């Protein structure tokens, strides 16, 4: 579980129908680190993540995992190395937590193979890591938003991939659950060395939790690098069209963005 994998995107162009979403994008995901992708609504963040996990074929360019094109890799082989948690996954009615988490084992199972000891262990470990073991027999429908998100992350953990992509894992969660999910992902990164790439809405949480920050604007790479270098007043203006003041967060030493709207600002 400590193997590191290179994940790169080169001259990537993506789109739906005749709408182009991502244009000539090049980027490298640092292995074994946490990367956050930020940008305005509809700037192509989710599209990029979908393409990195082969759900959307590129028009031109490549997504390369360890130098191999992900769109040409066998589906299950890719799914043993790279996992994706979509923005709004669907829980079938009445499914129990342990059943849902168990489905993360799919890429490790063959057509006729029985459920193995290894599968049970992976599911149990995923439940423990996400503090959802006491929910194992509960129906997913009955859970709170925060619990449900931890269960989905448990499913992705049961997949046991070294690279994990998450599309807005904190959306619809209140602030304490947002922090809980991000802490959990950080634990995962620190204990197993899992490479994490996530799309985040909240710039400040992204700057705090990510080792590497990627800012997209209109389908193009605006800036990428250490959050302290990327999250600047200029970036916020270019990416979000918003005036702001960026200060140093006294609790973490990371950059903290304060928006300057038209009201209530006294500086």
């Amino acid at each position, binding site marked *: 579980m400590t193997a590191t994998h290179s994940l790169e995107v080169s001259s990537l162009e993506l789109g739906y129908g005749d709408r182009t979403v991502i244009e000539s994008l090049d980027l490298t995901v640092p292995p074994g680190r946490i990367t956050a992708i930020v940008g305005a609504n509809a700037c192509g963040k989710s599209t990029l993540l979908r393409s990195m*996990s082969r759900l959307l074929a590129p028009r031109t360019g490549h997504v390369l995992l360890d130098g191999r094109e992900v769109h040409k890799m066998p589906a299950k082989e890719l799914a043993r190395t790279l*996992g994706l*948690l979509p923005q709004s996954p669907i829980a079938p009615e009445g499914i*129990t937590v342990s059943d849902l988490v168990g489905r993360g084992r*799919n890429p490790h199972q063959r057509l006729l193979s029985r459920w193995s000891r290894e599968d*049970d262990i992976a599911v*149990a470990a995923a439940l423990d890591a996400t503090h959802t073991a006491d929910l194992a*027999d509960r129906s997913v429908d009955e859970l709170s938003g925060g619990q449900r998100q931890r269960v989905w992350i448990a499913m992705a953990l049961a997949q046991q991939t070294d690279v994990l992509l998450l599309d807005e894992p904190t959306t619809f969660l209140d602030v304490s659950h947002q922090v809980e999910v991000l802490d959990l992902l950080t634990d995962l990164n620190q204990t197993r060395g899992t490479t994490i790439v996530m799309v985040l809405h909240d710039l400040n949480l992204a700057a705090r939790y990510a080792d590497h920050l990627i800012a997209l604007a209109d389908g193009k790479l605006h800036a990428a690098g250490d959050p302290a270098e990327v999250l600047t007043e200029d970036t916020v203006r270019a990416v979000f069209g918003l005036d702001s003041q960026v200060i140093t967060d006294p609790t973490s030493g990371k950059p903290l963005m304060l928006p300057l709207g038209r009201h209530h600002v006294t500086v």
Partner: protein
Amino acid sequence: MTTSTLDAVVRSRVRRSRRRGVVIGILVALVVIAYAVNLMVGETFYTPYEIWRVILGETVPGASFTVGELRLPRATLAALAGFCFGLGGVTFQTMLRNPLASPDVIGITSGASAAAAFAIVILGLSETGVSVFAIVAGLGVAIVVYTLSFRDGVAGTRLILIGIGIAAMLDSATAYVLSQAAQWDLQQAQRWLTGSLNGATWDETVQVLVALVVLGPLLLSQARNLFMLQLGDDTAAALGVRLERTRILVIVAAVGLLAFATAATGPIAFVAFLSGPIAARIVGGAGSLLVPAGLVGALLVLVADLIGQYAFDIRYPVGVITGVLGAPYLVYLLIRTNRAGGSL
């Protein structure tokens, strides 16, 4: 990982698979009982022993004809067609993640039925020809409905609405074809509009059996992928399911089963639509729904035919009875959809 969690995981997995085993066992037993009752009951009652002798090929006065030539093919066709409708129905409902996306709601069985009626009434084709026509039409409708509802992916609700429209057009085409029949006969009309087992023959029964033997395993080979599709296309794909390949295999197999069954019995109303949700309710999320839904389908048709033939003064075709059962559920689902703001 703690051992108590591991124990809990193993325990809940064992419980799920045990529940599934029990449910399938009970369903099989119920299908066997319903099948046996269908063979025994009628104008004359025959004992299981007499029926067994007929099955073994011995000559039993009266029973050899009544059971061997009338009740056996009828009950066997009922069970096989019901199994096909159940399998085909739950396949579409699972793939499109919507109980309304059943092949008898979105026009697939209507297409097969219209084509079968056309092939018999206008072209005068034999049984094999009729089945081929039904399959081509079923696949054609599936492709048309899918294509018309495609816009940056297929949205379930759009597909269902388009399918309902196409089904209405095809049903009126069936009615038109039937009105053109030289010797317009009510039984024939009932068969192609609501489904009926009247005049079931061994030839038809064998055709459905062959379809089930060939296409059933193909569909079951995709059971796990279908099961994963319940999590949504993106999640399933991220877990290693090849979406396009799964969809094509599953649509071809399910439409084939539905079309063969429809060519033999007509579109027995709402069996495809009801079987999946009933199976889901009793299986309770313990694994794939394919086999349980097939068994529920077989049971529905066997029981409905028994009711249709003997419960009232007049004999009703099986589709009338399943229709009476299915229609209220359709209304219930639509009301629930409305309350939930348009999504299921």
